[in-house]
């Protein structure tokens, strides 16, 4: 498998996620955070319906898997609501960087619940992330 086969879609996801986390700042000037989340949730369902139609409605069911996947939407969208509410008050620079540190929380949860071990490299990553949070959220002069 050539590198470009996965590098191009990875770069595409990187660009598109960056755009998708910037757009709410533009929309929140015209819609309240609650309205934006309501419209966004309904749009997401409509778009998923289109994706399903394009893939021939090949839908599988597994009770545990479905419940877990349902909770992804629950956590993701409730998180998005808080993200938009924070954007309403702050700047994209601060809010997007602080919230993008979620791999830090995911790593801690993986250690606690999946009993994954933490490597020295990951520990160094946690320290750097915490330093970034202190710099972005801490008091004092900005520059």
């Amino acid at each position, binding site marked *: 498998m050539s590198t470009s086969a996965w590098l191009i879609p990875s770069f595409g996801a990187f660009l598109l*996620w960056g755009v998708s986390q910037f757009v709410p700042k533009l929309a929140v000037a015209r819609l309240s955070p609650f309205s934006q989340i309501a419209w966004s949730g309904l749009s997401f369902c409509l778009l998923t319906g289109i994706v399903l139609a394009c893939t021939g409605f090949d839908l599988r069911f597994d009770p545990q898997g479905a419940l877990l996947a349902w909770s*992804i939407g629950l956590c993701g969208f409730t998180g998005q609501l808080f993200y938009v509410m924070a954007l309403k008050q702050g700047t994209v620079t601060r809010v997007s960087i602080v919230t993008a540190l979620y791999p830090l929380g995911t790593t801690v949860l993986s250690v606690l619940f999946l009993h994954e071990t933490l490597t020295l490299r990951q520990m160094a990553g946690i320290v750097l992330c915490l330093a970034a949070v202190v710099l972005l959220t801490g008091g004092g002069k900005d520059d």
Partner: protein
Amino acid sequence: MTRQETLLSAAALALWSVWGLVPKLALQSLPPVSVLFYESLGSCTVALAVLAFIRFRPDIDRRGMALTFGGSAVSVVAMLIFFRAVSLGPVSIIVTLTAMYPVVSVLLAALILREKITRRQILAIALAMAGVALLAA
């Protein structure tokens, strides 16, 4: 950062931490498109709860709604492209690369909204990106 902004960002970060963990478990028993479908039901649950909270009277603004729809479309395409990339290449490198997405958001904010980026913020961005790269690697 104000206290309220910090608390809201922390709440989003905490929920997204769980959001980052659960797909690993859900994808063990379901294919990506099925996960996307059940995930959309979860999103719809939140949307309906929020709609009930605002007594089914959301703001109606064409441009705001178009922006929101556009943002959702970009997000769904990004998710599918991400699943595609993961099925073709090394997960650790792909997760690291895509986790750098705030760089794009910050650049767009600087270009379009003229948000000022201070030296302290540039240092924080560099530390955050390096930290996420080490965590995801």
